[in-house]
């Protein structure tokens, strides 16, 4: 174990992968983890080593996403970084219609082993166009895997799985996580998809969160503890495929479910989780399922407005207290 930043953990996974597999090329390398506090010598050596496999393409998200599909079906394993997730909307047709559909509509002849990486979330003064959290939009499209790591260790292990997956994988990380630190196992390891983790055990209420919201949920759990509420924090880690069991097992234990989501709640991942639990574990519930997320408006710019719209530990604490009437 070594303490590392989230950015460094992703860099490690990418380095190991590129070392092992010469078919990996990275598009948009410099806006990914480079220049984000990595040891300068490591960064320099990496760039020098992979001159033909690190590309900084024109600002052409549409064709870039399509180049990913065309080269993946032809035998490469492209890693495509769009930067801010809203830029990937330029490429929505390619991601949904080409990447997600290719395998199925070819009757299994094609495989699309590619990773689309993007930064989601409310980063501060991003305004409406640089604060998107599009995870549920992708989850709604068959054929796409959707991954949202919360910790450096998860980022490294899940990225190893994403790169080795034969499916197109949306690897969605939060800009605010990049500098966060955590213990990361040394060497090579992979975390399977559809395998969530209980980040904090508790018995009174289940809080489900992903990505940056896991950190907010853990903060909230500490505050709730002081109020005598013992919260369990569950991180499913991948939206597609989804680990329903880790959530349901927890709800069966606590009887209460609050879901914290950074996106608008309309047709959100939180809504999906609520539906799954209502369908499969209704009798375990002692009260209504509560969702906490951003209001259904474009993200405003002004700090006071932005703070009002940003889901966080305080809003989660309020919701849990209301639910438990404490």
């Amino acid at each position, binding site marked *: 174990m070594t303490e590392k930043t989230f950015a460094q953990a992703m860099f490690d996974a990418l380095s190991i992968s590129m070392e092992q597999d010469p*078919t990996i090329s990275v598009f948009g390398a410099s806006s990914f983890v480079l220049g984000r506090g990595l040891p300068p010598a490591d960064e320099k050596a990496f760039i020098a080593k992979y001159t033909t496999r690190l590309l900084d393409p*024109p600002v052409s998200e549409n*064709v870039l996403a399509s*180049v990913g599909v065309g080269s993946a*079906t*032809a035998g490469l394993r492209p890693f495509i970084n769009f930067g801010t997730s809203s830029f990937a909307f330029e490429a929505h047709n390619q991601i949904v219609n080409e990447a997600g559909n290719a395998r199925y*509509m*070819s*009757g299994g*002849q094609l495989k699309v082993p590619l990773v689309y990486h993007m930064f989601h979330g409310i980063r501060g003064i991003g305004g409406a166009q640089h604060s998107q959290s599009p995870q549920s939009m992708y989850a709604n499209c068959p054929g796409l895997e959707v991954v949202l790591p919360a910790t450096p260790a998860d980022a490294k292990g899940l990225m190893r799985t994403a790169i080795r997956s034969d499916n197109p994988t949306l690897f969605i990380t939060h800009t605010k996580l990049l500098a966060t630190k955590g213990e990361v196992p040394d060497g090579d390891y992979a975390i399977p998809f559809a395998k969530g983790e209980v980040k904090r055990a508790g018995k009174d209420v289940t809080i489900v969160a992903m990505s940056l919201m896991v950190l907010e949920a853990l903060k909230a759990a500490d505050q709730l503890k002081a109020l005598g509420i013992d919260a369990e924090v569950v991180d499913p880690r991948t939206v597609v495929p989804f680990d329903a069991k880790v959530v349901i097992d927890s709800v069966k234990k606590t009887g209460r479910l609050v879901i914290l989501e950074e996106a608008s709640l309309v047709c959100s991942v939180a809504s999906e989780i609520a539906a799954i639990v209502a369908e499969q574990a209704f009798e375990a519930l002692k009260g209504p399922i509560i969702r906490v997320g951003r209001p259904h408006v474009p993200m405003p710019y002004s700090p006071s407005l932005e703070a009002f719209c940003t889901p966080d530990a305080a809003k989660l604490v309020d919701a849990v207290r209301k639910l438990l009437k404490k």
Partner: protein
Amino acid sequence: MPEIVSREARLSLLERMLLMRRFEEAVIHAAAKHKYIGRNHLYIGHEGTGAAVMAQLKPGDLAHTTHRNHGHIVGRGADPGRALAEIMGREGGLCGGRGGTWHMTDTSVGFQSTSAMVGGSIGLATGGGFACKQLGQGNVSVALFGDGVLDEGISYEAFNFASQYSLPILFMCENNEKPGRRETSMLAADRLLDIPKALKIHTMTVDGGDVEAVHAAVGEALARIRKDQVPVFIESQIEAWPGSHQHKPEFTTGETDISMAWDTGKITGPHADWIRQEPILRYVRKLLAEKAAAQADIEALDKKVQAKMAKARDFAEASPFPQAEGAILGAFA
């Protein structure tokens, strides 16, 4: 690039064109007989282009096409029975009935994909070109598309990308636009070629009704692509088939009668002008005039193709619809 001189090569080119034509005729007949069959975009009239391209691709080269794809698929060597079965939604289809007319793929013959998105093939082929370059085995990637693709923003991005990274790609545009009659694109530039040219892509124009002219242009382009690792754009100008309408083709010109090539008196009716210069009859006339083949050779070739299509039709008709429960499988590896 050498013109085709050998008699065998010329007859094989004609055979490819005939297969494309007879295949589409089978699609029309099947559509009349069955309820569920996609026949929106037929390849009739385009054969000179597809045959010239497919005759010159090597194993390992990657083809990506668009909605007007049937001719391309069978021209590259996909089994016509399985292709027809796919269009008819059958289990024995190339993609097990999961793709249909708009998404036919046959990786066993290097046919990577059909995208029904206008502009789909051009981006995918650019990715194919990137893969060919990275893998370094001397293969090329081909994008087949219509003039409408130049209306889509992705064409600009793809040309720029391919040019910047010097990718081995043939951009093969089948321009069947007919101003005032059949408008499938609206470009403010004077010519389609102006767009790729502005991005420093070598461009060529060719008469798509003259299969040997297309063959020569494609041959020259492929040689250049392979040698210099650069993209080339060819515009093949096609006289659109009068039966081709956006959503529902009509069999206006009837079944092709190959003897019309020498018995021109048989060509009558409102579409006589199109029939007179359509690429297959035109090529037959050329082969006869240059004594590369006799009428009997042509008739024998057509019979051979028709027999092949009869078998293909039997296969497709006999193939069952897929087991419904299988629909939920196969989205993920």
